[in-house]
């Protein structure tokens, strides 16, 4: 009789602790802020716009130092190429997309940007004046 009581108590406490921890894990997006308290103010981050960023390591894809709000890369067109294509870069005083971007997989030189390099923002990104949330030791 006693033993089974003890057993139930153990099972109950294990269940309870599982319940409590899982309840913590769910948490709300508000974090620990109560509903009736004022929420954290939104900190607006601005994009860094300058004459260009230095590379942080060799072969780093150059970072974008201008707004890209209006630029679109779609199946039908790539507006980055308005300035950065081999044809336009001199006229637009813009850096040219690297020579490697004009090669197909067999090393043949293409007249237009290679489809392998078509999606600029996969590697080239703008920067905000935000501090990283996690330290970076790279």
């Amino acid at each position: 009789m006693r033993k089974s009581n003890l057993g139930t108590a153990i099972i109950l406490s294990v269940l309870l602790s599982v319940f409590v921890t899982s309840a913590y894990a769910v948490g709300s997006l508000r974090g620990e802020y109560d509903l009736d308290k004022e929420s954290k103010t939104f900190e607006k981050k601005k994009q860094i716009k300058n004459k260009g960023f230095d590379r942080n390591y060799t072969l780093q894809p150059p970072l974008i130092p201008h707004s890209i709000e209006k630029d679109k890369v779609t199946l039908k067109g790539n507006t980055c190429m308005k300035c950065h294509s081999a044809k336009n870069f001199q006229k637009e005083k813009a850096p040219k997309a690297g020579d490697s971007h004009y090669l197909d997989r067999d090393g043949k030189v293409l007249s237009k940007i290679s489809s392998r390099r078509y999606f600029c923002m996969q590697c080239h990104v703008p920067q905000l004046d935000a501090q990283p949330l996690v330290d970076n030791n790279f």
Partner: protein
Amino acid sequence: MNSKIKLLAIGIVIGVIGWGGFNWSLALTNTEEFCISCHEMEANVYKELQETVHWSNRTGVRATCPDCHVPKDWMHKVVRKIKASKELYHKMLGTIDTPEKFDEYRLTMAMSEWKRMKETDSRECRNCHNFASMNLDKQEERSAERHEPHLWEVTDGKEPSRTCIDCHKGIAHTLPQGWEEAVDNDPLLKVELTKEEKEALAE
């Protein structure tokens, strides 16, 4: 004598009603609601506009379809309206009634609009944008750099080497596929470099 005055009065009344009605219907077809009452406009170009600076910006001033696509002054407006009757014909034919058809026809439509802009020295842009009021110090460095030579051309009363649409294509709607080649191969739309620009390039 009396009948002559009556006739004149009737004439004036009919004239006022007729002229007013004409102008009223002209104004009615010159609204965005009218433009997007056709799904061809509502589903394509109107949606694209909503992603651009002419829809949403810092000061909350926005452009509606007729601001750019219909001239403001009466003469040019009526001419444009008459030309636009072609659009009714194509609406009936269903030339662009699916997104696929619209995209197929997009380059043709864009080219004709660019040509209209080029021929009028981007008149509709200049209803709002004026070089005399353009403060380059308040622009981003890159924009200011590009605008400066043209601002001086205007200030010095020289023949402008560029018009707005020469550089600002695709600012309100998606650029059609193959637009760059099409523009380069079109004698009217092709943008020639100025002597200064050629010299700068040669260096």
